[in-house]
């Protein structure tokens, strides 16, 4: 895997507020990469810096061996798909997509060929002469995509690509984007706040918070081994419990001691992260609690129970065993499940 | 975009030229600084004229407010498609020739004019009324000219008030009248103030209406300034008067901004 984009110790502040704080990460060729984080995490600033619309206070951005920090946006081999799509309202679909190629002064024939074939690839083959205001949200997005892809940039940046779409369309588009990325062979970098989106589409994800990169890993790795409480809380649903480890048992904050055979230092204060599927409801459970809410998810149900710990516990049950709100419940988990997360 | 900055300086340059003349004088040949003109301006004659101008303009503004506010309110209650048509209707006269609109009032008000003819014909009066060349005619003329400028900002302010605010007040127990008084009115004040300023400011500086409809019997500060510049050729004195007018208006703007801040800021 060759490194295509090397972001090296990049920092940027707005009015003394650090938007990017010593950010470093590497993106490989032909990767589908996601930058994930809540609002204010700096992900949009990073995206704009990659596109050339924000200058850096310090650090380097090296694309394919070339430092692009001083290269203006219209000269970078990077293209951006805007969150609002930013389609030119006074031009047809064809003219929108052809805009970039025309600026490259390509011959007419080549432009026509590339535009029409790409429009066909994104499923808009017969829309070339339409005006942009006549299109639906999903169609507008495809035009925006096509317009950026047709120039064959080294990196395609996508700013919250699916946020404006309805749920059903969004699911279809997730598959579309994956397929497209493989077909055109361009490195995609998606910026999003939606962890489900990032997890389902990306090969690797960088999780950001408050201008810093918290962890870079594959979706599975992030889910199974979050590096710190922030990542654990941000990715998927989890219950994070504080406890004191002593001779193979975890002393929880409500006084209950449960077996814990996970590798860690004896006597240490740890965070134990449990996914809902790690915990089961059983009459022999060591921890008792009261059900506060139940949330139906299709194949199973997420139950939230107040157990006297610092936070309520979230666990999954099958549809045939759903308790009622207010019922008493007993839960437990195996000593070797869960992940020890270091406090940051 | 340096060009843009340069062009922004132009209007400022003009206003700057003013202060030039305020302090500097020239009587054709000699440039010398003097404050004589300021003293002259304070002469009771001129103060009286300024007073008349303010009084007349205030009357016009008040009338415009009394008529304009309900009008703007009426427009907000029309169906959305009709609102724009109504706005265009109200604002259209403003975009036509000011002189001609004033002239139309001469047609109406003169002693052989239509209004008199109508009243005579209906037997309501036996002698034509002297409607023209009175302060009343001047007020009418100014009101006619600037009423649209009162309606537009009030409409803008009213239409921006979220209707759910009023509904929320009623939901929380206020009577319809109280809801209007406590929610709608305060939010409409800034727009109303803008409307008042838009009417008062041009009225004060106007000289056409006092001349054509007032017949020289009602002299306003606008006429005075015009005369100083074009007839008496006493530019310095004219400038002083103009500065006085502009200063008064700047104070008005500041006052309006202050009140707006108060109402919106603490609201």
């Amino acid at each position, binding site marked *: 895997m060759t490194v295509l984009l090397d972001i090296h110790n990049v920092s940027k502040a707005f009015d003394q507020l650090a938007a990017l704080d010593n950010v470093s990460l590497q993106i490989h060729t032909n990767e589908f990469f996601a930058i994930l984080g809540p609002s204010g995490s700096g992900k949009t600033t990073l995206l704009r810096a990659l596109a050339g619309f924000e200058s850096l206070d310090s650090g380097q951005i090296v694309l394919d061996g070339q430092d692009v920090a001083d290269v203006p946006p219209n000269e970078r081999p990077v293209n*951006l798909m805007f969150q609002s799509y930013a389609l030119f309202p006074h031009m047809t679909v064809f003219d929108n997509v052809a805009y970039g190629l025309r600026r490259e002064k390509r011959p007419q024939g080549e432009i026509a060929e590339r535009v029409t074939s790409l429009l066909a690839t994104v499923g808009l083959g017969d829309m070339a002469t339409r005006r942009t205001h006549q299109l639906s949200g999903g169609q507008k997005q495809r035009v925006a995509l096509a317009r950026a892809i047709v120039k064959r940039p080294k990196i395609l940046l996508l700013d919250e690509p699916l946020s404006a779409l309805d749920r059903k369309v969004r699911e279809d588009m997730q598959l579309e984007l994956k397929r497209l990325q493989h077909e055109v062979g361009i490195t995609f970098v998606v910026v999003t706040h939606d962890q489900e989106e990032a997890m389902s589409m990306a090969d690797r994800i960088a999780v950001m918070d408050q201008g810093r990169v918290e962890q870079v890993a594959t979706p599975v790795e992030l889910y199974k081994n979050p590096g710190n409480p922030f990542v654990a809380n941000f990715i998927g649903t989890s219950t994070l419990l504080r406890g004191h480890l002593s001779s193979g048992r975890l002393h929880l904050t409500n006084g209950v001691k449960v077996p814990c055979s996970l590798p860690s230092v004896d006597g240490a204060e740890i965070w134990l992260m449990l996914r809902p599927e790690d915990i089961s409801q059983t009459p022999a459970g060591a921890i008792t609690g009261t059900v506060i809410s139940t949330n139906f998810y299709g194949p199973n149900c997420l139950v939230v129970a107040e157990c006297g710990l610092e936070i309520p516990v979230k666990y999954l049950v099958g549809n045939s065993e759903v308790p009622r709100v207010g019922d008493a419940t007993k839960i437990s988990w195996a000593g070797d499940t869960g992940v020890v997360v270091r406090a940051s | *975009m340096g060009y843009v900055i340069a062009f922004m300086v132009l209007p400022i340059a003009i206003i700057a030229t003013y202060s030039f003349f305020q302090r500097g004088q020239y009587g054709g040949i000699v440039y010398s600084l003097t404050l004589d003109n300021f003293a002259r301006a304070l002469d009771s004659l001129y103060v009286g004229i300024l007073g008349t101008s303010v009084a007349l303009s205030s009357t016009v503004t008040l009338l415009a407010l009394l008529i304009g506010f309900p009008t703007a309110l009426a427009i907000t209650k029309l169906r959305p498609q009709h609102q724009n048509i109504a706005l265009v209707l109200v604002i259209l006269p403003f975009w*036509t020739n000011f*002189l001609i609109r004033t002239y139309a009032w001469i047609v109406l008000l003169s002693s052989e*004019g239509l209004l008199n003819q109508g009243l005579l014909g209906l037997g309501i009066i036996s002698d034509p009324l002297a409607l023209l060349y009175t302060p009343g005619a001047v007020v009418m003329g100014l009101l006619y000219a600037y009423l649209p400028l009162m309606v537009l900002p009030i409409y803008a302010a009213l239409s921006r008030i979220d209707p759910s605010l009023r509904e929320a007040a009623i939901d929380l127990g206020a009577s319809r009248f109280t809801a209007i008084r406590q929610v709608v009115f305060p939010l409409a004040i800034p727009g109303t103030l803008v409307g008042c300023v838009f009417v008062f400011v041009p009225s004060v500086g106007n000289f056409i209406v006092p001349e054509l409809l007032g017949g020289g019997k009602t002299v306003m500060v606008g006429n005075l300034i015009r005369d100083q510049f074009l007839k008496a050729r006493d530019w310095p004195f004219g400038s002083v008067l103009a500065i006085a007018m502009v200063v008064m208006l700047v104070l008005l703007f500041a006052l309006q901004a202050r009140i707006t801040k108060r109402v919106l800021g603490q609201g």
Partner: protein
Amino acid sequence: MTGVGKLGWVLAAVCFFLYAPIAIVIVMSFNASKIPFQWTGFSTRWYSELFANASVLEGLRNSLIVGVSTMILSVVLGVLLAIGITRHSTSSAVQALALAPAIIPDLALAIGLLALFSAISVPLGLTTVILSHTIFCMAFVAAIARGRILQIDPALEEAALDLGDTPRGVFFRVTVPSLMPAIIAGALLSFTLSFDEFVITFFTNGPSTPTLPIVIYSMVRFGVTPEINALASLVLLFSVAIVLISQRSVKLSQSI
């Protein structure tokens, strides 16, 4: 929301008030009688006499020259000004100053300009009139353009840059076309404003090149005549037509 109700009467009365005088002038212009207020029959003779009147024709010619020149200049400058204050500056003081000429009394602006021209010894004539009109029309165009700019997605220009265009190219290929409705409305309105402009012209014009409003003024000072009625009607209808056409591009309510 309850309907218009009784307030509708206020609106109707106001419209009547605004249009009645104008309507009367138009009706009277077709009066065959030479004595204004006595109706003797329908005639268009005053209109034909207008076209034979040399000073009216000269005024018209000058007004058209000034109007078209002002229109072109104020659109170019006004749009640049609008872009400057909307995209490149956040200071509200700057914004107020830029739009000031539209708000300060025309008399103040007029004598300020007169003072300026004489200070730099520029002879008064059509050129000074054009410059003066441009200064205040420019502010109107800027106000209209600003309204439109605020509605446009700022990402459009970034998108064009991202796709490889130069800043100048972006301006002509993306910015200007997306502002076109405001440009058209601004052009039409500044032409109208210039065409109807009296006060500023009065002060900044030379004696030998009167514009149409100045011609009208000298006619009106002598009293009501049928020729004025005809001329007034034509000018009114002309202005109305232009404003209505411009409405198709930009709704006036959006530029407040």
